[in-house]
């Protein structure tokens, strides 16, 4: 299962949002692969117990998920989403599903206090059987917005966060495509 993605990172540490695009892949052996193709090349592979990140021309970094429990919950939830299983999701998150005709929004709020320090909620926007956008919102307002399977919006002029969120809520294809 492979899908293209475009991801925007909004952070108060940054002068302007970051934008990366590439491919997401969920392999048959259960490994999740996130391949960034632009503006640089980076591959992140997540197995059940470790994450390995390789950047072109740089050394490989490996993080054991045993030592990063928050990351493990986060990746576990992605895996559950990809497999369409709600049960494992419900153990780590409070779930809320809002539906409007063919459009739906699944809201996930972490139950674990430690995780809540880094993550306020995740919203998954979808149309029919397909999730289209994924937004992770952090307690300080920072966040990441990922557009799935959509044709990449042009890099300039960059869309604002509000525009992107509106587009996600309305069901993609989003703005300025």
């Amino acid at each position: 299962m492979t899908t293209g993605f475009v991801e925007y990172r909004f952070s108060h540490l940054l002068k302007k949002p970051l934008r990366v695009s590439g491919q997401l892949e969920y392999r048959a052996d259960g490994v999740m692969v996130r391949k960034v193709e632009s503006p640089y090349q980076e591959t992140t592979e997540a197995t059940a117990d470790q994450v390995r990140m390789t950047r072109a021309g740089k050394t490989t970094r490996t993080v054991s998920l045993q030592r990063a429990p928050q990351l493990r919950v986060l990746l576990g939830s992605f895996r559950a989403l990809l497999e369409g299983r709600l049960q494992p999701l419900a153990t780590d998150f409070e779930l809320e599903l809002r539906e409007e005709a063919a459009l739906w929004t699944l809201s996930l709020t972490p139950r674990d206090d430690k995780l809540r320090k880094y993550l306020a909620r995740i919203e998954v926007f979808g149309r029919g059987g397909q999730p289209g956008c994924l937004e992770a919102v952090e307690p300080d307002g920072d966040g990441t917005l990922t557009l799935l399977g959509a044709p990449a919006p042009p890099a300039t002029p960059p869309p604002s966060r509000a525009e992107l969120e509106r587009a996600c809520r309305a069901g993609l294809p989003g703005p300025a495509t």
Partner: protein
Amino acid sequence: MKRRGWLLLGGWCVLLLAGVAWIESGLKVSADLRLFMPAPRTEEQRLLVQNIGESPASRLLLVALGNDEPATLAALSRSLSARLRQHPEFGLVANGDQAPLAIPEVLLPYRYLITDSFDAAPLDRVRLAAELEERAADMASPAASLLEEWLPRDPTLEMLHLANLWQPRAEPHQFDGVWFSADGRRALLLVETHAAAFDPDGQTLALDALRAEFQQLRGSSPATLTVSGSGYFSSVIKNRTQSEATWFGTAATLGMIALMWAAYRRFGFTLLGALPLLSAALAGLAVVAALFDSVHGITLAFGFTLIGVAQDYPIHLFSHLRPGQDPVITARRVWPPLATGVASTCIAYLAFLVSGVTGLAQLACLTVTGLAVAGLTTRFLLPRIVPPSERDPADSAPLARLDARIGRLPRPYFLLILVPLAAVAVLLLRPVGFWQNDLSKLTPVPTELLREDAALRREMATPDLRYLLVASGASEDAVLTRLEALDPSLSTAAAAGTIADYDHAARYLPSADLQRRRQAALPEATELRSALQETLAALPFENELFEPFVQDVAKARDLPPLTRAALSDTPLALRVASELFQREGHWYGLVSLFGVHDPAAMAALAAAHPGITFLDLKSASEQLVAAQRSYIILCLGVAALLLVVVIWIALRRWSRVLRVLAPMVLTTLVIIALLRACGVSLSLFHLVSLVLAAGLGLDYALFFEHAADDAAEQRRTLHALLVCSLSTLMVFALLALSTVPILQAIGITVSLGVISNFLLALLLTRERA
């Protein structure tokens, strides 16, 4: 008994009670096995003696919780370790639920002095640009939200770098945030006790605390607790030895009472017969309490066994009592052989006094004092309080028949040649393994416990118990410098697979010199700010974002070097304290080794670095024991010569001296030959038992010899020695049944000695009436 007798008895009892009070207040019982190791002479021996049972590895208890749902076990593991961390008995308690080891917040600027990140290339403009470019990419990675919090203060991720560096290479599996066995059925914990591994009492206290907390936290769960580790073993062995010793002690006392009753048919004799032994024990204890700081439990247990010989003394007196003779006269008549026996036995034990082994010196002190007091009690106190005798053993008809039958037996003088020849033959046929040097073989751990231990150690990756590197120096800093010089070789060894992993204090606390060099290489604040400004122009980060970083680097440039003392009350302190410490004015740094595949390579590595010693705790302690034993045997040789002199002074004729010595010498050869023929390797405890048996043989021979050709006196002596040898045989045959190897070794050796000595003295020493 006359009034004077009662008064004497009462006075003596008061004296004994005073002795009890004195012992109560002055005697400290210790369980430090090092009391049985020779005093160290070289630096290496000192390190060895210090580290046996005291290294961090040996003080670890391995704990497993099982038999319930994993989630319940995980919760139990968390609550148990939280409780244990509050206990005074425990140091480090690890179950996987703690945050990785990190620098405490107040010491954070020190990270630039601890990290090795900028040793090869300094933190200059080029390096900074490369790092920040990476961080920008990190900001778009899934880990961004985790990194953001510290990014302004730590853009080169030194905290992460150090946490990774300090993480053990191998860690147990995890479930629900705590360590679990690979099969997911048992939660695992590592608990460091403050008590040394050889301190069974301290270990028992710690284990009791652990079990009590577990019971309380478990509630209604069926969960079970499994413990393993060196300290646990020493507690198990001690408890088993103690319970067996108590059981044998009770059985022997009952048997002794029955035997005394059968021999004399007088209750008073049985009671009074215990008086010399009781006096001996109390006097011996009192002297040991006065001369030594603490006495080892083994000294006590073993010492009482040796003093038990004193039970023979009143028997000699009682068997020679007859109606119409004042007991004081009887005592005067049995005194020459008795005194010779006591004196020569004491001389033999004096050899242990100068052995250089504290535990043996205590043993000698206890025994010599005890035997002397028992002898004197029998000579001067007992005859004045013993009730007058109503019958003479010499008149006993069965004894007379037995005596006659013995008289008809042939005298096996050929044994004087045959026994030595047979002994030499056995020793030639079994030349290997004469001595047992491995002290642990005397107190072996049951195999099922060893299997459990091996299984838990496989899961938990604990440091090696046998091999250790030690850096020593005049100061904390000198030791750290030596560890730093050693570190590259260790790292190479770990990469090559010679060892699986290693740990030492300098990984957490660099030497002052290294810290100063790192300080000098750090950029000044203005320099760093301008480098940042230039770099950030091309990067998405806010312009003033990294000011906290600039502040920390500036602080790090001015800090006094970090020391062990400055770490106190931080999580690092526990780790560093057990690996870097001061003893007797000297500083030591231990290098824990994990999975040592090639000990010889580690020994060579240590030899190549000044101030580093490779310790093989097992083989070095064996060598030490062996070297010490040669010295003890030399002392025993000197004692044997002295003993011959004492006997010559007592008997004045070489033919008599030879007749008295023959049974004892032959018996010693018989015992050694039999033990070796059965494949037994001799230990220090066999050696002491041989001396005990020899002392018995000497007594038997002296009394048989003393009876000369007087028929009535011979029958009284036969009566006395039958009672003596039967009682001694009963006690030691019971010990020979023990499952504890020390007790068994003593029991078998002495039992063989009693039988052989009695028969040989009867047939070789005793004259025909």
